[in-house]
């Protein structure tokens, strides 16, 4: 792919994105979800693919962003505890249009800030671990955050929290959230695309390849790791805020901090598309979202079982991902000369 092809592809994706709700209004929500999934997969890949820190806990930032956004949205007009106590069903909680929009803006900002703060606090603690200890620790963090939210009465405890009801005057809020998701996905993609051309990506790739050597070369690995983790959290926090409003209902363990759905899906999307690439997570998210919607439509009740099967199949049989596979098949297209990895895996084993 030359630079011109790439630009054309981005322009085409952008055009489809902008026109989608006009052309196929019935699928606006699914498409908005897809843009958010792209953000999830891209930010997972920043830490998991580029830095080699496979996290199961990025869903924490989604949940934190979701709750922070909803709390700020509510609190500019009402008391949060009264709102959650009424289970969101109270008709007395009315949000006039301008207050709603202000709240939404402030809420998304709060979501981003909260997620980054959480990432900075947790980062230096958690990122000192390596490999599977890190993976399981982050898995534990995700579930712990869900359990804490489910026990916290102020946030509605286990019954969850509804996002503030949008006022009628705004019109179709799905459109609003759709374009917000699209904008966020675009910013994330372009932002990470820029980041992947800076020295920073060399540093995190060095950490992935050999952390001890990277440190010996003089890299401040802890700071770099926490920075990458916080950049991911920034986008995830905003995405969480939008996702909560799109879903309308924030359940602590099923929506906000759901390790067994969104939490593992983002890993799957990045792997399916191809870890450690910019386009991989995007492609993975698209394929995954389409597959998921098919499962949801045609496998009534069994869709989650099917998704589990999909996870196992992809991880076991297709770990290199779509882009990795294409790269293996057509290396010339990517500007590689055909010689990488001529040493068979078995021979490598003996060398070591």
């Amino acid at each position, binding site marked *: 792919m030359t630079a011109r092809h790439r630009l054309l592809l981005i322009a085409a994706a952008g055009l489809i994105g902008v026109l989608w709700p006009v052309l196929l209004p019935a699928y606006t929500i699914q498409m908005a979800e897809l843009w958010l999934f792209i953000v999830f997969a891209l930010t997972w890949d920043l830490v998991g693919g580029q830095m080699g820190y*496979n996290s*199961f806990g990025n869903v924490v930032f989604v949940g934190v962003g979701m709750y922070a956004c909803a709390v700020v949205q509510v609190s500019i007009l009402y008391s949060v505890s009264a709102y959650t106590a009424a289970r969101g069903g109270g008709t007395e909680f009315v949000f006039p249009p301008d207050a709603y929009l202000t709240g939404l803006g402030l809420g998304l900002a709060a979501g981003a800030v909260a997620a980054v703060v959480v990432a900075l606090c947790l980062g230096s*603690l*958690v990122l*000192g*671990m390596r*490999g*599977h*200890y890190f*993976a*399981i*620790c982050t*898995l*534990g*963090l995700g*579930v*712990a955050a869900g*359990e*804490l939210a*489910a*026990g916290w009465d102020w946030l509605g*405890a*286990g019954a969850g929290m509804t996002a503030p009801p949008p006022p009628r005057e705004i019109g179709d809020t799905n459109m609003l959230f759709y374009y917000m998701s699209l904008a966020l996905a675009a910013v994330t993609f372009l932002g990470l695309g820029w980041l992947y051309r800076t020295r920073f990506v060399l540093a995190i790739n060095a950490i992935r390849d050999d952390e001890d050597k990277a440190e010996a070369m003089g890299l401040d690995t802890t700071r770099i790791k926490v920075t990458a983790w916080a950049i991911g959290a920034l986008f995830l926090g905003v995405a969480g805020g939008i996702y909560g409003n799109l879903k309308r209902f924030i359940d602590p363990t099923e929506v906000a901090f759901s*390790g*067994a759905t969104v939490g*593992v899906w983002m*890993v799957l999307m990045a*792997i399916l598309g191809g870890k450690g690439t910019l386009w991989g997570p995007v492609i993975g998210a698209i394929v995954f979202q389409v597959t998921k919607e098919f499962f949801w439509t045609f496998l009534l*009740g*069994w869709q*989650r*079982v099917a*998704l*589990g*099967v*999909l*996870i*196992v199949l992809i*991880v*076991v049989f297709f*770990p290199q991902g779509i882009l990795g596979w294409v790269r293996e098949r057509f290396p010339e297209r990517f500007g590689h000369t055909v010689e990488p990895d001529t040493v068979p895996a078995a021979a490598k084993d003996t060398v070591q």
Partner: protein
Amino acid sequence: MSNISILFQAPPLALQLVIDGFLIGAIFALAAYGMALVWGVMNIINITQGEFVMLGGFVAVVLYEAGIHPLWGVPAAAAVLYAVGWLTYRAVIFRIVDRDLFTSLLATFGISIILQQLMNQVFGADVRIAEAGLGSWFFADGLVTISQIKVVGFFICLGMGGGLLLFLKRSRLGQAIRATAQNARAARVLGVDTDRVYATTYALNAAICGAAGALVAMAYTIHPYIGLPYTIRSFMIVVIAGLGNLAGVVVAGLGLGAAEYFAGFILGAQFQLAFVFLLLVVVLVVRSWRLAMKRQYLK
């Protein structure tokens, strides 16, 4: 937090918490022993561990609902889960034994989602129990209650742990398993069929977890989503004790059980699971700090 003062005013309550904690801690330790076995022999961290416990519980529940005494569920669950473990190995696990740890983590996580959603689809998400019909003992004017099935379960756990230990130490297959754990390639060179060893180890682990699950269904409750906490507990216990440290596993298991009961009592039952998962994070953070302190820098 006000519950702390209650504990000081009524010491028997603390005793009750310790006893209850130790009784369930034996089940944690048994599941953790299985996890350590698979981890040590196959270098796989089995996230499916908790789902095997859950499946074992459902075997006991099915027997109970069919009118059979659920204590029969312990051997039945072990047998059924041995088959499930064997099938899982033959279907998926043998493909990932030599792969990196993240692959096996994610693959076993996928299997756990399949099993959990399958059971949710077949049995529904309701909480179930298998009533063993045993009574309770009362001490200290009824302040301390010990349910007999929990005591029975405790001793069954001890017996199974001991049996497994004997099997590993004495039997021919047990020796092959230990040899594979020490060095798989050397074992292969010396004629050990490592594939069969792996299959047996994985199936054995599933069987242990299944038996533990049957006890959970009798002494506590069971539903399709209890798996992950058991996995996390097992992992935590193995990390605290270290691989191959049986005494450590027992102590850590009993200690975790007691700690959980105290946390549930002091913080409220709704935070008991949050405590387990936060404790995992704390344990891992402390571990990484201790490792970091061992590193030396040249000035």
